[in-house]
């Protein structure tokens, strides 16, 4: 076996072999010439999500695959190597008045396009632009056996063949290595205005539904609160120099109708507010963070459950929601790991009853010893397993992610050869 050791930028579990390929061919080479478990890592901002990969035999560091391959500004498409940090890509296309319409919190920490796609991560502008599933138009994958598969292409409208980008979206590196990605771009709106109002969860829910029923077409709708009784609603609208202020005024008046006292923020205030929002979504060291996805109309109920379950477990609870699309992040802090575990279990029980889906993100290491990393599997878990068995029959990729959902006992890495 070839041993390629490249200095890792991050501390890792003892002596993993780290390979940092520069492109597809080297990625293929790395998986072909190795055996055993593989962890794909970009900037490493979401390594906790959905289960940690313990002691991988190979760490495939994608940060050497950081090039823009093609950008034709007039076609508003860009193709990149998967390891390029989103922030750097945005700077490049931004010079042409364009952006990848994605504003995830982790971009501040260098998150890569491939990592974001694998995690299915997005930002508050998901309200208007959707997630990466809606922005990726082509993808090139490297499978665990070194096969290379491309789907989609360089045009936005294209229905030829299966859409493999959807398959890896949210797969957390468990089905294939993402090698290259083609994205559609959007024009940067001339003006973005944020309107903010103090709002308890019930009033915020009513306001969010009223906004959706109205003609404003907001680009971000976020509610954050430490309890159901107090919080704040932030709504951003974008448009032309004339259109955005008109839309902001209508948002203000819609919120006023919901008895919320809203004001437009200055650009500096807005930048600070969204920065704080990002920090809230990320959580901090020592906190346990759980993503909960559900219906917009259930915002207040989720807020109440967070508050109640945190109280019961004796920890602090906070919620930050993309309220218009029902994508919440719950943070539990303070107390001991077993108290976090109790609060997470209670949230999962609520989620099961309400038909929400959940995923564990950041958490203290000790939480993993006390809590199964995933909640109740979805009804489609059999499909997931069948796909896993076809794409990665030896279960080499990211063992431990999704807990036991993917079949076998995914919590432990498999030995060299992975059962071959």
């Amino acid at each position, binding site marked *: 076996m070839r041993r390629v050791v490249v200095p890792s930028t991050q501390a890792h579990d003892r002596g993993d072999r780290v390979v940092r390929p520069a492109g597809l061919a080297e990625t293929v080479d790395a998986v072909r010439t190795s055996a055993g478990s593989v962890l794909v890592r970009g900037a490493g901002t979401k390594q906790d999500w959905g289960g940690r990969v313990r002691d991988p035999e190979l760490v495939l560091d994608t940060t050497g695959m950081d090039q823009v391959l093609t950008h034709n500004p007039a076609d508003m498409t860009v193709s990149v190597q998967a390891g390029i940090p989103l922030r750097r890509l945005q700077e490049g296309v931004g010079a042409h008045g364009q952006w990848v319409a994605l504003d995830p919190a982790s971009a501040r920490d260098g998150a890569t396009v491939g990592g974001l796609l694998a995690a299915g991560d997005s930002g508050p502008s998901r309200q208007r632009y959707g997630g990466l599933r809606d922005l990726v138009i082509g993808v090139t994958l490297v499978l665990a056996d070194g096969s290379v598969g491309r789907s989609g292409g360089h045009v936005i*409208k294209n229905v*030829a063949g299966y859409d493999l980008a959807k398959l890896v979206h949210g797969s957390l590196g468990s089905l294939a290595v993402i090698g290259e990605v083609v994205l559609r771009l959007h024009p940067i709106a001339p003006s973005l205005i944020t309107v903010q109002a103090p709002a308890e969860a019930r009033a915020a829910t009513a306001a969010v539904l009223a906004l959706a029923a109205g003609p404003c077409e907001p680009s971000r709708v976020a509610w954050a609160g430490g309890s159901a009784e107090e919080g704040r609603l932030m709504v951003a609208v974008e448009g032309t120099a004339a259109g955005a202020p008109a839309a902001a005024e209508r948002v203000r008046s819609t919120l006023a109708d919901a008895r919320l006292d809203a004001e437009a923020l200055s650009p500096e205030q807005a930048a600070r507010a969204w920065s704080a929002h990002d920090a809230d979504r990320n959580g901090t060291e020592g906190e346990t963070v759980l993503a909960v996805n559900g219906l917009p109309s259930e915002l207040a109920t989720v807020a109440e459950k967070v508050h109640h379950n945190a109280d019961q477990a004796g920890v602090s609870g906070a919620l930050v929601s993309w309220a218009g699309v029902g994508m919440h992040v719950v943070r539990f802090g303070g107390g001991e790991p077993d108290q976090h575990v109790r609060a997470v279990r209670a949230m999962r029980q609520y989620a099961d009853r309400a038909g929400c889906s959940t995923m564990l993100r950041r958490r203290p290491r000790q939480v993993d010893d006390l809590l199964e990393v995933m909640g109740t599997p979805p009804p489609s878990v059999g499909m997931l397993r069948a796909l896993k068995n076809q794409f990665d029959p030896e279960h080499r990729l990211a063992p431990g992610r999704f807990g036991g959902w993917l079949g076998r006992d995914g919590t432990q890495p498999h030995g060299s050869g992975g059962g071959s």
Partner: protein
Amino acid sequence: MDRLRPDQVIDDKTSLRTYECDGLTGYRVVPALVVLPESTEEVALAVRLCAGQGVPYVARGAGTGLSGGALPVADGIVICLARMRAVLEVDVANQRMTVQPGVTNAEISKVVAQHRLYFAPDPSSQSVCTIGGNIAENSGGAHCLKYGFTTQHVYAMTVVLPDGSVVEVGGGFAEGVGPDLRGVIIGSEGTLAIATAVTVRLLRTPEAVRTLVADFDSADKAGEAVSAIIAAGIVPAAAEMLDALSIQACEAAVGAGFSTDAAAALLVELDGPEADCEDGYTQVQRRCREAGATHVRLADTPHERARVWAGRKAAFAAMGRISPDYFVQDGVVPRTRLGEMLRRMQQMAEDAGLRVANVFHAGDGNLHPLVLYSAAAPGEAERGEQLSTAIAELCVEMGGSITGEHGVGTDKACSMPSMFSEEDLRVMLRVRTALDPDGISNPGKIFPTPRLCGEKPGPYRPHALETAGVIERV
């Protein structure tokens, strides 16, 4: 429930012929049996029976597809979902709705129109095509430039897998956890699963709509206008172009008021909040004039707008006015290469001694070249078919795709290798193998097989409903 009623099964030869083709009428295969289930359980029952016997099946909605995606398999059964037309739930607050797969695309919007909601994908066959078919094809429509395709507008599906099991995919809201299985199934042309209940995302109807038609003395200039509009940061709801032949055909058929002396007509529609829309409209007019528009017609009333769209959507059927027979092609090129593509096509048409009319979604580079020929003239059909295929494959050479919205189906399976390597196709087939290891769900579609690729497609003939004026083609 362990059996279907007699009135849910069709097995007499005459009735079976109704199902022998979809909208691509050149391919015809009479199935052995057609079943008409009315519930998820009945679909699952039919699939389980097929799975047990290794019998292939093909799911079918309204049969309006243009790629032979619903072409039956001889000795196989057709599972026709046309009777599953119930609206199961309307959730106005969360702007979503759950329907059975046989509900038509237009019906969805009609049911919620009173709440100022609508379903965004709008394929031209929307008055009859079903949501189940939209899922199979990942349908778009004229407005997908701004609003995306079916995959952007479906939250969840109940599906019957090829082993007969019933599974929910997608959470019923924006995003679930784990791989996006709903996204894998949407656009898989009925080869992975049959959707039996669909939760769609509804949008609030836009506050304002503005539509104009600009005439140009060359298609290149019209293309430049589109590029200028998009470079100005405007995302039109639709940007459609007709060339001279198409304009003449449409005018002869519908009389939509297009200028018959123009070399190209560009239809641009904007929608959204009033202030943005008005601002964009002014800009679009200016960009069109700067690009050399010889005339700009503002379709400012709902009546005028409907007339303009009627002209645009009549294009396929209208070809009958200027040619006895024609092939409908569907390909995509990067928008900036539209002009070059049009010139290359023109040259290819001249070389083949045929005419090609063009009507297309200029905003996203999706071309619908119509290869005109006469079946009565010896050799023309063959030359026309070769030209049509060559055009689709040229799209790939230009960095595009063999299909933007009609699907691969039976028709283009043999062109897939022009776009994807054998290895790419093998990787895609792993998805198929995972969910349909025996290959009984809509076999022979999407992926090339030696048997299939020895056969020849036939010419485009309008679907019966199209001839009757019930549906239109974009």
